[in-house]
């Protein structure tokens, strides 16, 4: 066979000179490859992001756990031990885990001449992230304040409005039974739900001042994505059992919502996969068809080359190399497109896409395109190589 650099040179030159003919095909394959790389690279990020948005609608990725001792009066009350929660938090599918009091203490809060029925809840510092709450005023209490059992509190936005109207509640002091709590922030937003009427105290402070009615007996676990929910839900009883008595443990999963989300995502993924496959198939057929018509149009050229001593494998190599040039240049364009998309998306998504993953996927797509080029170009190239020399020379 002739030298590799000669094959490369003449094939690339040929494709470049006929570039207008193959533009559509190259763009189709480029588009397919770029969507493939983008989906493979951003899949996790998109899932994570979509997860966050979907959660606004229903909390499908949140698992709740508690103890049923309140309904069984013979059993001793139980709390979640810190090591139990720590072990659950360490699961890779878990985004965050928080403990709170299951019991809500309804306080008749006497303030500025009127009594407001105020539910009190003790929560730890992970509560905000786990239930997607954010401060709309002031700040939220953190680990240090929870550990020290400080007298601080965060109000729901409706409670804050009832008590203070337009006045800024942050920095004010609220009398809760015999103690005084400093208001450090207000929570609100889409996720707040009925907690807009609540006063939230550090877990330790709430437990301390409740005379045994409040315990750290409510566990809330947020998973990174919906596909981790079932496995985390299944793992929780075992983890609890390693650290404490799991007899009265009850784990709740939003199974219905989860099912809906999973089936919706499945359809989206199917749709995306089918579109990518369709684009690549169209591109592949385009290469095949283009090479086929090129072989017929260049019959005379093939005859002349054979007459001047080209061997079958020389002709085969040249046409195969042309198909490869098409598919690989499409892959390169696709990789550049995908890079732009991934970079742009990275600016909008909360997590940065992994560049290592991008280059891995780019490499995979490149190999895939090579296979596509060989698969679609082989038969036309073989036809060119096997062409009868005399018939080709007589062809005008």
């Amino acid at each position, binding site marked *: 066979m*002739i*030298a590799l*650099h*000669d094959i490369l040179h*003449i094939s690339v*030159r040929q494709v470049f*000179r*006929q570039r207008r003919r193959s533009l559509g095909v190259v763009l189709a394959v480029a588009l397919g490859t770029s969507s493939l790389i983008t989906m493979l690279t951003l899949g996790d990020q998109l899932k994570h992001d979509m997860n966050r948005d979907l959660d606004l609608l229903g909390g499908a990725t949140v698992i709740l756990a508690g103890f049923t001792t309140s309904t069984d009066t013979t059993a001793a009350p139980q709390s979640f031990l810190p090591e139990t929660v720590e072990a659950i938090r360490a699961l890779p599918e878990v985004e965050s885990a928080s403990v709170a009091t299951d019991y809500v203490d309804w306080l008749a809060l006497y303030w500025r001449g009127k009594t407001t029925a105020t539910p009190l809840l003790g929560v730890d510092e992970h509560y905000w992230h786990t239930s997607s709450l954010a401060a709309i005023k002031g700040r939220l209490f953190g680990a240090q304040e929870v550990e020290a059992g400080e007298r601080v509190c965060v109000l729901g936005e409706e409670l804050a409005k009832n008590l203070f109207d337009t006045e800024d509640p942050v920095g004010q002091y609220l009398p809760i039974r015999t103690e005084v709590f400093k208001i450090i922030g207000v929570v609100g937003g889409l996720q707040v739900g009925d907690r807009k009427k609540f006063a939230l105290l550090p877990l330790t402070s709430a437990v301390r001042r409740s005379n045994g009615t409040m315990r750290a007996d409510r566990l809330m676990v947020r998973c990174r994505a919906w596909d981790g929910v079932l496995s985390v839900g299944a793992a929780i009883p075992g983890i609890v059992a390693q650290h404490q008595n799991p007899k009265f443990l009850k784990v709740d999963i939003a199974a219905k919502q989860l099912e809906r989300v999973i089936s919706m995502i499945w359809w989206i993924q199917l749709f995306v996969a089918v579109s990518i496959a369709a684009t690549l198939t169209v591109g592949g057929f385009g290469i095949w068809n283009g090479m086929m018509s090129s072989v017929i149009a260049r019959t*005379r*050229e093939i005859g*002349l*080359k*054979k*007459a*001047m*001593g*080209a*061997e*079958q494998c*020389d002709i085969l190599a040249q046409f195969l190399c042309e198909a490869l040039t098409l598919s690989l240049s499409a892959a390169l364009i696709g990789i550049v497109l995908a890079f732009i998309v991934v970079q742009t998306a990275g600016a909008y998504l909360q997590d940065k896409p992994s560049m290592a993953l991008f280059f891995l996927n780019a490499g995979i797509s490149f190999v895939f395109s090579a296979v596509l080029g060989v698969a679609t170009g082989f038969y036309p190239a073989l036809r060119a190589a096997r062409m009868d*020399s*005399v018939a080709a*020379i*007589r062809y*005008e």
Partner: protein
Amino acid sequence: MNKKDAIVRIEALRKTYATTAENIDVLCGVNLDLHAGEMVAIMGPSGCGKSSLLHIIGLLAPPTAGRYTILGHDMFGLSEDRQAAFRREYLGFILQSCNLFEHSSVYENLEYPLIYARVPLAMRRQTIEQALGRVGLTHRIDYPTNRLSGGEQQRVAIARALVNNPKVLLGDEPTGQLDKGTSDMVMEYFQQIVREHDTTMLIVTHDPAVAKRCTRAFTMQKGQLVAIS
């Protein structure tokens, strides 16, 4: 080598085309010796088998029966790749028209035989310039071929056939599409090449003027070659 030794020797060559309707006997026992430095013309009516003979000599098609040697090498039963190797080494083709590759420059056209003969890149330009020099077209080396005149194109085709210094040049009506003046000029180049390089040339032609310039001329009758005096 003894000048009397034939470069190409053909004995009792037969070619039969098998079609569904009938078997067409195109060549019925052709005998032909071609020597170095001679130019042989083959004439004859259309469809008498001139091109068929040329294609067999050019190793592009197999004969049905007969003996065929080039410089003593038996050409019968060679593999396709060995035939390709002989074409690269010993043969040069010039056809009636559309000899050149489209969308290519003169240089690129002449480069292909060198590529197939594995001539290293560094030696190619010089070789190509030499070959173009023989037909007086060195100044057109980087021209796109579709900008050349018909006569120039045919001269490029000749240069391409010459670029590997073949022992045998095969022309299938190489002047068929040229006007009288250009045809004369091309024939002059052929004569000069044959004279200077001791090449053997076989020309299929309809033009008696072309045949007159050759050393010998044959006409094909009933599948056999008959010498014209």
